[in-house]
């Protein structure tokens, strides 16, 4: 929780600015769409944070999003599979990808950066080759399955704002991962492995198995996220769908208090990290800044945010020290 305070602060600041200066920012429909986007990216970021906790990194998230997002309509439309066949298949493929990463990293001891970078190239290439570079979409059909990501639930008494269905998996996953890390033996082991792999091994932790598991979970979530993304967007091009999403996911996790050296995570922080990025982008449009400036603004705001967070933290630590000595 303490680790998440920084990003919650940054989020709040941006939210206030957006409310004051953004046209129609505080309307139900805008908040609804923001919730949707934040949920989708959260799912990827949660996966990323599991890998980051082990001290690893997964650069293939965006490509797995692409592969699963492309496969879903491709299997449904071109191959005419039923949704009941497609969903498990896509998830299984994603999990298998993660398993390969995990085994290459733990058994062959290859660097995670390298393995998942190859993955980044490979799965996108696979998606492009599979579809012959044609964009894939539902062509207006499959409303049924797509409602997994498109349904909205009304809240009695509140108009305009309805809860998007993607919130449910995002929250369920966040709670599950949060509990997993703090309340289960395996979660504790994962944290220990990330902090000091060798000490974890001496303490009887099956480190290789846990690291593998975290890569499986990350790819599985990326695959699941990719499916939700495509249900939401309706169509995608293999050559650009999911580009840079790994950076967004990792950025959300790191902003949320995960250290890339491993052993630290904050699920609440990750959710806020993902939401911050989305609110920021939305704000830029609603405030009417040029989309040319979008990147520059996001970069600056994040940098100023984390720098301010660090300075505040330091200042308060120094005060504590000066007060000193309770012993």
């Amino acid at each position, binding site marked *: 929780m303490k680790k998440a305070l920084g990003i919650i602060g940054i989020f709040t600041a941006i939210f206030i600015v957006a409310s004051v200066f953004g046209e129609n920012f505080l309307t139900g429909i805008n908040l609804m769409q923001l919730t949707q986007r934040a949920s989708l990216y959260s799912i990827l970021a949660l996966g990323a944070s599991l890998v980051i906790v082990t001290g690893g990194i997964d650069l293939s998230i965006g490509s797995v999003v692409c592969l699963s997002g492309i496969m879903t309509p491709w299997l449904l439309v071109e191959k005419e599979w039923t949704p009941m066949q497609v969903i498990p298949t896509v998830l299984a493929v994603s999990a298998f990808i993660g398993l390969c990463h995990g085994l290459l990293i733990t058994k062959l001891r290859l660097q995670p950066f390298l393995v998942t970078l190859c993955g980044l190239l490979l799965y996108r290439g696979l998606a492009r080759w599979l579809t012959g570079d044609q964009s894939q979409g539902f062509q207006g059909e499959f409303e049924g399955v797509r409602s997994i990501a498109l349904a909205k639930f009304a809240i009695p008494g509140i108009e305009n704002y309805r809860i998007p269905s993607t919130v449910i998996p995002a929250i369920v996953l966040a709670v599950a991962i949060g509990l997993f890390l*703090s*309340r*289960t*033996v*395996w979660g*504790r082991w994962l*944290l*220990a492995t990330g*902090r*000091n792999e*060798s*000490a*974890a*091994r*001496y*303490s*009887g*932790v*099956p*480190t*290789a198995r846990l690291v593998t598991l975290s890569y499986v979970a990350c790819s599985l979530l990326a695959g699941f996220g990719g499916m939700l993304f495509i249900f939401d967007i309706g169509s995608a091009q293999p050559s650009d769908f999911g580009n840079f999403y790994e950076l967004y996911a990792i950025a959300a996790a790191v902003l949320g208090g995960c250290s890339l050296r491993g*052993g*630290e995570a904050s699920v609440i922080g990750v959710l806020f990290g993902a939401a911050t990025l989305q609110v920021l982008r939305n704000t830029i449009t609603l405030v009417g800044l040029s989309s040319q400036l979008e990147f520059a603004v996001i970069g600056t705001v994040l940098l100023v945010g984390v720098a301010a967070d660090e300075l505040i933290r330091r200042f308060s*630590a120094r005060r*504590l*020290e*000066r007060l*000193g*000595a*309770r*012993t």
Partner: protein
Amino acid sequence: MPSEQPVFLRVRGVGRRYAGVTALADIDVDVRGGEVLAIVGENGAGKSTLLKILSGVVQPSDGDLQVADASGALQSVVLDGVRDATKAGIALVHQELNLAENLDVAGSIYLGREPSRLGLLDLAAMRRDARKWLARVGLDIDPGTLCGTLPIAQRQLVEIAKALSCEARILILDEPTSSLSAREADRLLEIMAELRGRGVAVVFVSHHLDEVMRIADRVVVLRDGHKTGELARGAYDRATVERLMVGRDLARVERRASRADSRVRLKVEGLLSAHRKKSPVSFEVRAGEIVGLAGLVGAGRTEVLEAIAGITHAGGRDGGRVMLDGTELVGASFERVRRGVAIVPEDRARNGLFLEDPVSMNMSLAWLDRSSRARLVDGRGERSLVGSMIARMQLRPAQPARRVQTLSGGNQQKAVIGRWLAVDPAVLLLDEPTRGVDVGARAEIHAEVRRLADAGSAVVFASSELEEVLLLADRIIVMHEGAIAGELAAHEASEVAIMHLATGGTHAS
């Protein structure tokens, strides 16, 4: 206290506060040339903090440091960083090892002070001079060896060689002998005496009071960050110092009666280690028995313990077998831990601790797996366990939420041992169990280990301190160059007998 020796460094009213603790308060010390100054105290008394302040690693919160200039006049200085200290002629050997593992030994010794010509490294000179300093500390290795491949004792010697090579006016050593065996420790004491003879000021910390008795000209005693006494040679004895350290007299612990009659719990057959393929090791440990492994640095004790725990896989296809209660132990370390094997590693920072994590996490890690139902952590149980283990291990400060990194060295060691004592393992393997632990706490740890053995566990420990081996072990196995050189029952063992075997002599002593 008048003395004819010149004061090199004067400490006045120095204190250091951290968030939550006062590590050091109002310390006055004079460091004199041609004198060996020992600093003693319990774990967490503030010894390392004081030494770090003297060498510029840590800045004092208050107080004043004065350093003698060329003419011998004392000048107030601010030592902001190691560079300043080096300029003032001060060198420090840290308590925790600090070598960059990607550098070779020569590179490590000269790190920060590399000889260079026109900006280019003079590698030949570095190697040549490094060899000289290595010989000085009695380490016979090639200066081109990578530090990462050295066992901990050799690293310690490299660090000492590094400090010696500074040829400083003031040499500061924080528990330099803690991971050395008797022979290397002796050699180090000789070097210290020699430096003293040449007018160098030597400051050192040790928990071995016999070392202190042998060499120190003056002893400064710290307790809870305060100076409780400063005694000159001849004005102190062991009991006085202990009383000043602990605030009471320490009870002497006697060796307990051996219980070698019960069934065999642990059986090691023809174990070949990963690095030495030639000499298989075999021995048995009975339930309730405490076996001590003795030997010189590099004798192979660590390798044996790690092979039993499954950390390093025994070399070759026929790497030998380890049986626990009659069934073979197979697989990786986690499968062995499941069956009740526990190992306290030699290098706590690298293999034992999660430095950035709180004490509670470090102490409950092994317990989690044993206690949890359905893999869920019982939060309340965990808290009470950690509380009781902190009390049992006398961890100070007793704050479960404190990061282990900020504990003193001895307290870190207690945290690692506590992790395993919490789960009552069937086999407890301890590698240098009391490295850096103070006298009082050492007795406590020994008592805990005995208690565990009395409950029927098999205990094997390796220690470089003959005193500890003699005191704790029921049976002593002496190793020499990877093989078992002989076995001694506790009652027939003596330091001489052990050293005889350890240096390659035969059993006929």
